[in-house]
């Protein structure tokens, strides 16, 4: 398919071409309120073609390309007629690194095996007065990329997603707590046990509602709660934002901008992660990239186009779906652990809630999820979010669930002082396959569609430790909450939003969260 497209493109476009072909097969089962209710399968294939003709670049995509490759080439050329001139250089052939992306046990797992995984979670999570939803999803993806300069790569990958959530409604108090496993291979028994333990621990702490303190407090973010801090950072580290002149980090390469304990990288070669790959979607071999090292900004991520515009080289972050043009995107973002925390890791690799950072907190908050992260002026750096799920910490231990509050930080706080502690243990735990948190992918169908990568499983994952903020502002959300037990029910929230303010593909354990994007 892809060879046919490139052969046709070579004849008609004078500046070369590159293409991506992707085929996805997905099987999923869903338990709703404890009952197996649905089983589904999906098969998708499509191609995305980019051509350079008379110095201008054009892109077209289709799920019907196999029927009419000529038409796709024609549409890419029509797109190039309008395009701006761009000296994009298609990379030549290069050796590819090895990375484990395909696991036969996952690819071959029969429906019964997926059902058994779901049932085992249901059995272990069952509680009186609670509803339990579980989904299990398996995906196999074939990706092939090639260009007219001779570079090509293909790989198969698998993905397994298991998510569970427990709902408890008491009066107007609605509590839903979930977690998910995601990896390229089937989950081990230990991984499932850790998933159950994560949900149960948070559920038990959440059943006790406590009164909040007021004012500025120390805040510990769980890996999923960290999105509000991480999103502006990842946006600012994109070469695209630098080119646009809107990255606050532009011109700061080599400068210490963050606390020396902050190191952030992107690693497409991490074994067993669904976002891992040997080659990016533009034929650039994958490699691990350090973005911030010990607080010093080291580099930005680029795809071929942004690299050409910035007169630099692609960092291997080209990401493309069937529709739309490639964009720079992250694979596995890793925020390295610092020296903080107790380092306590259970034998199964899971971390305790709080990552060992709570011991130093006399009176504070453990934030697991915020509402509305990604809305508004993200890259500006200031944020203000109601808390979806957070726990009051008193004298180093979790005292109970917070009611609806707001956490906010001003830019100064976030950049300079926000993170002063990291737990090394949590990196290990969460890099190992727990706690999915998908990064933003643009949701316009023109850019991704349901098949832009390994489908729903494939947000770009990050491995994050717990992090503590020493000076994040904090105040009660409403007057009436100050007295008496709450009727408000914090909920888990999502992560990054996108340029078009649509929600990213969401982890399945968060279905009740919805967004209006304009």
């Amino acid at each position: 398919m892809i060879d046919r497209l490139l052969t046709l493109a070579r004849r008609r476009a004078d500046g070369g071409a590159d293409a991506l072909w992707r085929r996805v097969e997905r099987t999923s089962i869903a338990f709703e309120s404890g009952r197996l209710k649905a089983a589904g399968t999906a098969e998708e294939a499509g191609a995305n073609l980019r051509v350079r003709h008379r110095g201008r670049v054009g892109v077209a995509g289709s799920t019907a390309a196999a029927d009419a490759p000529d038409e796709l080439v024609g549409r890419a050329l029509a797109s190039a007629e309008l395009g701006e001139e761009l000296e994009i250089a298609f990379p030549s052939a290069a050796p590819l690194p090895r990375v484990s992306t395909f696991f036969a046990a996952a690819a071959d797992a029969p429906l019964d095996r997926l059902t058994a995984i779901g049932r085992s979670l249901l059995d272990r999570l069952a509680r009186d007065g609670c509803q339990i939803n579980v989904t299990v999803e398996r995906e196999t993806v074939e990706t092939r990329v090639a260009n007219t300069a001779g570079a090509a790569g293909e790989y198969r990958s698998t993905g397994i997603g298991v998510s569970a959530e427990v709902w408890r409604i008491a009066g107007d108090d609605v509590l839903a707590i979930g977690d998910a496993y995601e990896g390229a291979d089937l989950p081990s028994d230990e991984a499932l046990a850790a998933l159950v333990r994560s949900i149960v621990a948070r559920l038990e702490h959440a059943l006790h509602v406590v009164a909040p303190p007021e004012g500025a407090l120390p805040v510990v973010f769980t890996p999923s709660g960290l999105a509000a801090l991480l999103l502006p950072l990842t946006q600012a580290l994109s070469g695209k934002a630098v080119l646009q002149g809107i990255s606050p980090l532009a011109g700061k390469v080599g400068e210490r901008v963050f606390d020396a304990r902050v190191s952030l990288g992107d690693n497409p070669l991490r074994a067993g992660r669904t976002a891992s790959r040997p080659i990016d979607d533009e034929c650039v071999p994958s490699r691990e990239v350090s973005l911030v090292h010990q607080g010093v900004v080291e580099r930005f991520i680029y795809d071929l186009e942004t690299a050409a515009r910035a007169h630099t080289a692609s960092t291997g972050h080209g990401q493309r779906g069937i529709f739309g043009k490639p964009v720079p995107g992250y694979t596995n973002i890793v925020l390295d652990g610092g020296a903080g925390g107790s380092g306590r890791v259970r034998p199964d690799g899971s971390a305790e809630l709080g990552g060992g950072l709570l011991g130093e907190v006399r009176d504070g908050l453990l934030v697991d999820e915020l509402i509305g992260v990604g809305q508004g002026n993200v890259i500006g750096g200031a944020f203000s979010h109601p808390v979806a799920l957070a726990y009051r910490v008193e004298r180093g231990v979790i005292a109970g669930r917070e009611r609806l509050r707001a956490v906010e930080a001003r830019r100064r706080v976030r950049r300079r002082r926000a993170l002063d502690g990291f737990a090394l243990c949590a990196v290990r735990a969460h890099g190992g396959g727990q706690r999915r948190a998908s990064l933003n992918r643009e949701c316009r169908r023109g850019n991704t569609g349901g098949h832009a990568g390994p489908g729903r499983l494939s947000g770009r994952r990050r491995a994050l430790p717990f992090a503590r903020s020493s000076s994040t502002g904090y105040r009660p959300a409403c007057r009436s909450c100050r007295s008496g037990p709450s009727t408000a029910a914090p909920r888990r929230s999502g992560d990054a939003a996108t340029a078009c303010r649509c929600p990213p593909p969401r982890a399945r354990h968060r279905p009740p969260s919805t967004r209006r994007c304009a």
Partner: protein
Amino acid sequence: MIDRLTTALGRSRADYIEIRVERSWSTAVTFRGRRLESATASEDQGGFVRVLEAGGGWGVASFTSLDRLEAMVARAAELSRAVRVDPPIRLASVSPHEAEAVLDLDGDVRGVPIAEKKRLIEGYNAEMLAVSDEVVDTLAVYRDEVSEYWYVNSEGTRLHELRPDVTLSGTAVARRDGTIEKGLESIGLRRGWHSVQDKAAGFRTVAERAVQLLDAPRVRGGAYPVILDPELAGVFIHEAFGHLSEADFVYESPQAREMMTLGRRFGKPALNVGDNGAAPGLRGTLPYDDEGTPTQDTVLIRDGILVGRLHSRETAAAMGERPTGNARALSFRHAPIVRMTNTYIASGSGSFADLIRDVPLGVYACGAFGGQTMLENFSFTAAYGRMIRNGQLAELVKDVVLAGNLFQTLDRIDHIAGDFRWNQMGGGCGKGGQAPLPVTEGAPHVRIEEALVGGDVPTAP
């Protein structure tokens, strides 16, 4: 196509089966700053099969190759049989319909050269850039799509539709030193080329506002009387109430049913809320939903009392109510789930001036950067705000984030003006991994006697 689908239906012995096929043509032109970022044309096609065998669960299959139609029908039936559900899934009855529905294409976008589309959005983009040197970046997007849609089910419904959609969006980013502010324009219509002409003024206005916001202070956080403009009031009712009225949230949970019992008071008698999938010409408008049920105007809150909810055939049967035509799927890649269409707060009486006249200190929150709900908790980011002082509009403020609890906030709506309008925005609604689904909201100006506004924190160090 209908014949081909009907033949495939006829070969299956499943108790219930439905097939949807969609083919869509879309173009998108994007300007970033002065640069054309992309101009692409895409074609997407595929099918979706859903089968319900007696005593079985839903078996679903989606595919992009239509050659796989028959195989996928068989596979969906197999999956349905593999899942045993007790008590069985039932579907509320809907009489079969045969319809050929071609919505008003209003200048079929498929006949307009992409160069014309580029010229249109380039002009709107230039309007934003021309406002000030402080507008350092813009994003201007033109997008259109025409979908051809076929639907058949084993109960005799046969539908063929042509659905247009066109959206314009503009983001202006203003920067001065370290301060960055944004303005957003968004227009979305279930129409065609003619409907997106002469829209320059809106693009200019948002760029001007982004520049003005550079000088505006952050709103001081606290509890205030808040007046929502019609755009934000619409997003509010969609997010904060609409999602809870979707019956798939309640139908499996006795506790949730109790929370959403019909007859429960949700607000003051002035409050009337509904969802109207049959309102002419809006983005959420369609003659039938994705289960072949005709759309309708469903009243959800009448005089402050909960009187209805939004249903699919499955949720309606489970709750002994009637389907409302709200089972919608984003595309052939997805199963239909309960979704809103065009959600509204009905018009009240009086003017905007009447709402602010007796407010000594309050916030007028305008426009929507976005909204998110988690069950009964919500958060909205307004595009900008104005303080209200002594019954008059005062200074511009920024970073206006509203947060709260649905039940408390609905109950605190104490005045609804008579200036209703539909907000024809682009973007859409996200739920269960299906986004952005085209929806519309409508509302007049609405006053909340007290709401929490996030902003500057007086106590932060």
